[in-house]
């Protein structure tokens, strides 16, 4: 399995943000996307997840999963993807259990059980608490459980460790390593080292300022 991204381009708010970004990541590999604030890391991840349209006649064919194992057939990329963005996609008024079960139901539930997943992020015992009562770091860890409870090969992670303390960071590094060993692919945008063994890296530089439509 191989995620191939070939010469993609993305505009935002009428401005060119990414131009001709290409890479490929195979099963079991991770790609770390780095770059200054505002360079376009989050933009790239959202485009990969299909949450932003590509610019200039690029079609979704420019982002593809090649050499798929038989089981995956021709499922659209979106259904093989987990996206962990800045927002955690949880409702403060619902309990942790209600939140996570909802996402398991909707995203497909062949991953870890709720208890198991909470155990993996070392948060057992919170399932009946309203999500809104948790601290920033705890919220992020609950959000990581979503990745564990629905099995999907491609993980797109936008600053996944923001708000995590040191111990949770290490825990999360192990979780990612497991995902890679199981044949998954990880693309992560981050300023901080993630503790992965020899990931690929991609540095994004802000574009020169002359590529908008109204120059």
């Amino acid at each position, binding site marked *: 399995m191989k995620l191939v991204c070939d010469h993609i381009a993305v505009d935002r708010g009428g401005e060119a943000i990414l131009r001709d970004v290409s890479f490929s990541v195979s099963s079991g590999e991770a790609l770390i996307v780095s770059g200054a604030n505002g360079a376009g890391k989050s933009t790239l991840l959202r485009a990969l997840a299909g949450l932003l349209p590509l610019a200039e006649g690029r079609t979704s064919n420019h982002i593809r999963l090649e050499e798929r194992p038989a089981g995956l057939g021709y499922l659209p990329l979106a259904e093989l993807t987990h996206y962990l963005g800045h927002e955690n996609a949880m409702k*403060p*008024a619902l309990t942790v259990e209600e939140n996570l079960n909802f996402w398991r139901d909707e995203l497909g539930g062949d991953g870890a059980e709720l208890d198991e997943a909470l155990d993996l992020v*070392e*948060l057992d*015992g*919170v399932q009946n*608490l*309203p999500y*809104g*009562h*948790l*601290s920033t*770091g*705890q919220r992020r860890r609950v959000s990581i459980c979503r990745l564990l409870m629905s099995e999907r090969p491609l993980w797109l992670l936008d600053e996944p460790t923001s708000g995590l*303390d040191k*111990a*949770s960071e290490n825990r999360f590094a192990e979780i990612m390593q497991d995902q890679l060993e199981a044949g998954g692919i990880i693309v992560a945008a981050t300023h901080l080292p993630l503790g992965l063994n020899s990931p690929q890296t991609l540095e994004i530089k802000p574009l020169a300022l002359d590529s908008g439509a109204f120059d």
Partner: protein
Amino acid sequence: MSSMSETAPTLSTTKASRPRLSDLANPTRFLWLAERLLPFVWLITAILFAVGLWMSFAAPEDYQQGRTVRIMFIHVPSVWLAMFAYMVMVSAALGVLVWRHPLADVAARAAAPLGAAFTFLGLVTGSIWGRPMWGTWWVWDARLTSFLVLLIIYLGLMALWRAMEEPADAARPSAIMILVGAINIPIIKFSVDWWNTLHQPASVFRAGGPTMTSEFLIPLMIMALAFSFLFLALHLMVMRNEIYRRRIRTLQRKAARAAGRAKTNPETA
């Protein structure tokens, strides 16, 4: 730095010896008291209702209104309690704003659904009475309308409380809203004097004494007393539930934080 976080000894002793308002009626003491009071309050309520209802049905029929006059014994206490509950909320709101007492907020919040229920009952009984008396369920006269506005105010306050997720943050804004809405109470009371209304003017609490005959007045007063005790009982119960609800919140918060702690220092887990 040495100059900081140092407690001046004189200051701390004066602080410890000063009795705090929250010691006088803290939630724990309130719960203790409520548990002991509630059986008696319910007993008195039951007795008053038994006597009041019996006397209401024993009362003679009105020469104009016939048997429908008996609706009065429900209608009038309901509307009185509807307005009384709002006055309870007003005093609780003052408690929130002036003394910042957490129980005051609980009292205000607990009174709102009760007040709304009594208002609704007053509207329903009034409508049912209005059908034979006025030939219509509803007219837009000043008394009836201002009373309907009271229901909107109650429901609006309840919506405000629901919308704010954190009860402690909702306390002061809703207290202000309660005080602002209080202007409606005198309007209800004096609407019959200020405007031409289909609704009849005051016959009990009026300058110059009641005009109602004692055959009606005595059962009415007993029913009013019964409704008051019913309100007291329900208010205590709802306040108790609200306190428990907030305790659960606090416990959940603690559990959440404890989960974080067990995580950061594994040796304490």
